């Protein structure tokens, strides 16, 4: 600790800094590829998701019905067919609403009028979560947001569903 005004760096300090710097550089060169490798799943871009044919449009009624469909799922090196389902119905204005059955509370599966005590509601058996017909969660039940809505398109009289997305607040 020299009281010098120039704040001289001692030989020992200089060597310490240099060695720490060089050592740190080498360690970083070694570790950074490994860390990037490890966190890759977080940084991977999400696929857009293809549309899959689900059901003929004229089978859709104003009453929500469950339709199952399979998608090709690519899970890293493992490719498989996974069954998904949607609750589909015609709304009053004639447009189609396809709701994901995944409860927004903790991920259980809801069904339309799944409980005798709750007619005209989507019901989740895990914690008695309820949703109105349009998928909006009933206040004071566990879910905190509406059921997710599938992107859809209609082609040649068939309903095609894409990815289920959180509904924007209306």
């Amino acid at each position, binding site marked *: 600790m020299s009281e010098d005004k120039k704040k001289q760096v001692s030989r020992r300090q200089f060597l310490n800094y240099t060695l720490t710097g060089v050592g740190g550089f080498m360690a970083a060169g*070694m*570790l950074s*590829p*490994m860390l*990037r*490798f*490890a966190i*890759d799943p977080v*940084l991977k871009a999400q696929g857009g998701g293809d549309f899959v044919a689900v059901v003929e449009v004229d089978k859709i009624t104003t009453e929500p019905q469950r339709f199952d469909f399979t998608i090709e799922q690519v899970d*890293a*090196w*493992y490719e498989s067919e996974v069954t998904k389902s949607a609750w589909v119905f015609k709304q009053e204005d004639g447009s189609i609403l396809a709701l994901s059955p995944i409860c927004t509370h903790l991920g259980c599966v809801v069904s339309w009028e799944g409980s005798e005590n709750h007619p005209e509601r989507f019901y989740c058996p895990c914690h008695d979560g309820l949703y109105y017909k349009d998928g909006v969660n009933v206040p004071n039940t566990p879910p905190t947001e509406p059921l997710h809505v599938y992107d859809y398109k209609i082609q040649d009289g068939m309903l095609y569903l894409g990815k289920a997305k959180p509904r924007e607040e209306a």
Partner: protein
Amino acid sequence: MIQKLYDWIDERVNITPLWRDIADHEVPEHVNPAHHFSAFVYCFGGLTFFVVVIQVLSGMFLTMYYVPDIENAWDSVKYLQTQVAHGQIVRGMHHWGASVVIVMMFLHTLRVFFQGAYKKPRELNWIVGVLIFFVMLGLGFTGYLLPWDNKAFFATQVGLQIAESVPYIGEHLKVLLAGDPEIVGAQTLTRFFAIHVFFLPAALFALMAVHFVLIRRQGISGPL
């Protein structure tokens, strides 16, 4: 900031002597390349250790993607090498590092041998070193199978035949390694994986600890 954190801990648990014991020791002049450049031959042991550290780290990261199963092993290796960011580098480090370890260890052995540094009182450490050598060869052998490609499969076929040629116990030794008297397959792969990532590294760490404790106890052998 770091200094303060260190001081806070040191004040309570007195960690300074712990690392000083490990880090503070004099390097004799004849071992210091700054005095005699030829002293670089003393670096090979440390270099071996350095590469081993790389092997351990890269290996740990590789197991985040690798699956030791005959259906998926090759696909998972292909995936981590081609689809995961820096996968080629991380696997490359492990692949090439495996060879570099053997080379460095061999040079270290040559130095100790030709300098006669294994002589009394250091015979025990020589023996430990030879055991480390065998463990390393085992790691190389078991790791070679894991990508489950053709080269790996047939190299293991050959290695198992060599094990089988050991007098008296050869047959049993082969079954023990392969997990099946006839097939080199599902059980072979899981066994080799377990040996490669758990059993041999455990043995390696224990032996390395003994190796280092002994060298600190006995000191580096004197100049020629």
